């Protein structure tokens, strides 16, 4: 009974060391898309209220035909380096399927070389951070083949901020405080009852 279980564990362990490194690397992509967004450098947007209008298109300085494989465009909201600091769940990794820089989807559209724009209301679950916008072009196999972003290669220019909702409501605050007070008051009540029992048993 123990041998098969041990064998199973060993084979599981061996299978784990097979690292999967297939996939597209960000460094292999060219910035053939030009992307612009309405927020200016340092502007603060309120989650759930303010809007971003993104326009994107093929950058005509690149040779004609470069975009022949582009089938879809996905536009994303991405963290700037300052919001990634000491937060490894937002880390930039070259292998795109492990990359956590751009978790928030703005829109996905079929590819068109020009005249693309979309107005997006910043969603209520977007956290407070500094951002930029990036668009990826995907081919028919749903792999990234090109990108474009509103900031420079070092991700240091044209960054904007989002101020998130707190998630707090007055009713929640009141309920919280009332229940807390009730706990402490009932404890005082218990001690009082206990003292009375002590006196009664004398």
């Amino acid at each position, binding site marked *: 009974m123990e041998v098969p279980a041990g064998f199973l564990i060993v084979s599981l362990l061996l299978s784990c060391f097979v690292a999967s490194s297939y996939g597209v690397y960000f460094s292999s992509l060219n910035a053939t898309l030009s992307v612009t967004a309405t927020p200016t450098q340092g502007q603060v947007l309120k989650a759930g209220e303010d809007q971003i209008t993104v326009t994107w298109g093929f950058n005509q300085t690149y040779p004609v035909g470069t975009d022949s494989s582009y089938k879809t465009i996905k536009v994303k909201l991405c963290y700037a380096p300052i919001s990634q600091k000491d937060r490894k769940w937002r880390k930039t990794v070259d292998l795109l399927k492990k990359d956590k820089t751009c978790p928030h989807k703005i829109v996905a559209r079929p590819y068109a070389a020009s005249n693309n724009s979309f107005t997006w209301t910043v969603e209520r679950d977007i956290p407070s951070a500094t951002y930029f916008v990036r668009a990826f072009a995907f081919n028919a196999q749903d792999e990234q083949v090109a990108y474009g972003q509103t900031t420079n290669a070092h991700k240091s220019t044209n960054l904007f901020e989002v101020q998130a909702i707190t998630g707090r409501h007055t009713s929640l605050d009141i309920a919280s405080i009332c229940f807390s007070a009730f706990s402490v008051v009932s404890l005082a009540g*218990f001690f009082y009852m206990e003292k009375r029992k002590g006196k009664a048993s004398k």
Partner: protein
Amino acid sequence: MGEVASNPEKNDRKFALPVDSEHKATEFRLFSVATPHMRAFHLSWISFFACFVSTFAAPPLIPIIRDNLNLTATDIGNAGIAAVSGAVFARVAMGTACDLFGPRLASSSLILLTAPAVFLSAIANSPAAFLMVRFFTGFSLATFVSTQFWMSSMFSPTVVGTANGLSGGWGNLGGGATQLIMPLVFSLIHSSIGSTKFTAWRIAFFIPALFQTLSAYAIFFLGQDMPDGNYVRLEKSGEKHKDNFSQVFYHAITNYRGWILALTYGYCFGVELTIDNIIAQYFYDRFDVNLHTAGIIAASFGLANLFSRPGGGMLSDFVARRFGMRGRLWTLWVVQMVGGLLCLLLGKIGSLSGSVAVMLVFSVFVQAACGLTFGVVPFVSRRSLGVISGMTGGGGNVGAVLTQVIFFRGSRYSTEEGISLMGVMIMCCTLVIMLIYFPQWGGLFCGPRKGVTEEDYYLSEWSAAEKEQGFHKMSMKFSENSRRERGRKGAAAPVQSDPPTIV
């Protein structure tokens, strides 16, 4: 002699379970809720479970909370440390409080005083506030000591190991259950009521808070300190003698074995607490599973407590039958070492299924080590059992603080590196068990000293003046009962038949 005559009702009292001369139950019936013994068991494990649920309610929701409160990895690490550091001193204080006020009042008070921290978690607005609520909520883990104390008051030595192991293990289960409960409650609120994520997690915290409050009420109204009644009544009628605190405390802190067990408990229970804090986030971030799945995996670690910690306690009793205390010590050493090795391995594995498999085996070993530790603790001291239990329990929390500070704070080590290094530290710190030596029974490598008896060991905790007044009688009874710790071979060793002469 006069005492028995003046309390005729004491001997007439009927109990649902068979009892010994102290009215402690000699049998353990899991599915009974009979007053006072089994009811005390169920009240204590359920309330301890509730405290664990509250203390570890945040970790499975960290991916949401960290975005809402703009937490960095350092903030999260600090809050995790804060959650387990409060209980370090609270556990030692709880041992004292149990002696003064009885486990019923001591535990219900602590639980009601920490419930506000859980309610107020719902309105936390910054990393500092988050740290504060986790710190104060963590104090509730001191109910471990009242649980063990209450079981020791209600159950006789033959079943106290089982009672302690089950109540401790089933309480610890809360650390696992919360990883399932909180994401579930969160998604119910988020999808059914339609609250945004940043509001849903706040509402979710009301569930553990209410559960905790209700359990305190249950203890107060349904529980009882001792088989014969509550402390208040027993002290007034003179049935219970109050010991001297400074003496009890002195005899606990001067016993080196208590300190060694506090250290080693830090590397089984402390590691368990650390894993409760980091494991959901680890699976979510490293293997890209969703919140639900990360919660289920993390839960399975804590849920193993259902059988692994009680199993450790029962294993300790089982090896003691043949090999006595030396068997208990060896088993503890081996199980905790293997636990450390598995922890080292856990951090090295890069696949999801492999990680889950190793984590499950690791959880069984590390929790069994906790149960095995409390197979040794009751024998370290008789007079100062409460404080020694509190020190060991507190040491567990110190281990949790240390491992989180060294390995899981900020960005110095990746989480997987931290886990492997923690495994190495477990193995190193477990080596000190080699230093534990009971003169009457031996240690890992040495046998018992010739001519030394259990009475010599336990009665050395009482002074001559105290012995003249007869305060040491329960230690005498305990010495006789603990002779089984010699194991089968030691049955021929010297037995003291006369009261010890004062040296």
